[in-house]
């Protein structure tokens, strides 16, 4: 093999190596996604019913997520089940007329 042939084959091998490394990195990413999905489906099964979500098991903060688990805020309670977040009812302030726009959905008093 002349030196030129060695180098040309080396170039093609480098190209192949880079593509393979890329595929390997992408595979690890897919497996991480798969593990995460499994975790979430377990979470979903666990809180399928209406009772408030048990405090989710404290996950060690993976370098990617980073955000520590925050207890569910009251307003977000209805989020998962497709309702819009409702706000706690406030005793109507004296003379507080509602700045609500017409035709607001009755179930949540946004304002006033």
């Amino acid at each position: 093999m002349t030196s030129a042939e060695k180098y040309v084959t080396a170039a093609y091998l480098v190209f192949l190596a880079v593509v393979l490394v890329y595929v390997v990195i992408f595979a690890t990413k897919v497996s991480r996604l798969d593990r995460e999905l499994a975790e979430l489906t377990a979470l979903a099964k666990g809180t399928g019913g209406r009772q408030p979500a048990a405090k989710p098991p404290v996950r060690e903060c993976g370098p990617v997520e980073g955000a520590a688990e925050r207890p569910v805020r009251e307003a977000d309670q209805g989020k998962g089940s497709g309702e819009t977040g409702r706000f706690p009812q406030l005793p109507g302030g004296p003379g507080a007329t509602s700045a609500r726009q017409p035709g607001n959905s009755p179930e949540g008093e946004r304002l006033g």
Partner: protein
Amino acid sequence: MIRARQLGRRFGDKRVLAGIDFAVRPGDFVLVTGPNGSGKTTLLRLCAGLAAPTSGELELELDRAEIGFLGHEPLVYRELTALENLDLFGRLYRVPERRERIGMLLERFGLWEDRCERAGAFSRGMLQRLALCRTLLHEPTLLLLDEPFNALDQEGAALLERELAELRAERTFLVATHEPERLGALASGRLALA
């Protein structure tokens, strides 16, 4: 004047505002209340156009010249004097009879003696008053005030209440505050964020 449908804002993974619906019509005085971190400041920044919603829509019928925004930061240059700061923003907002208006505002907020003082030398309360002067400088039709009373002393708070009562008639307000009862009389509506 402002209409929001399912307004939401997320910072990275943290969802600060979700599914907010509200409308503010001209002449309203809406109080925004809620604990720290409930997104009051973010809501005001969205209305001021300083931040873009990541979900939902926000309609604003005003252009920037008619909006007065008072945030946690006084938004004044510490190296410049009070007069120079107001003069800078006066020019940018093309305020007619700039000098008289600046003089009147400084007088009204008790900053006239310190007008040639560097803003850096001001106390936190004086900076808040200077920021209020800057916010009211161009007579905005919509006022977005984020906890305007913090760092104000007794006299400053009284000044502000008088000012708000005076402007209540012909201006629209969206005020985030921790003491809603202080402005309860003026309020025409309330938006509670949890």
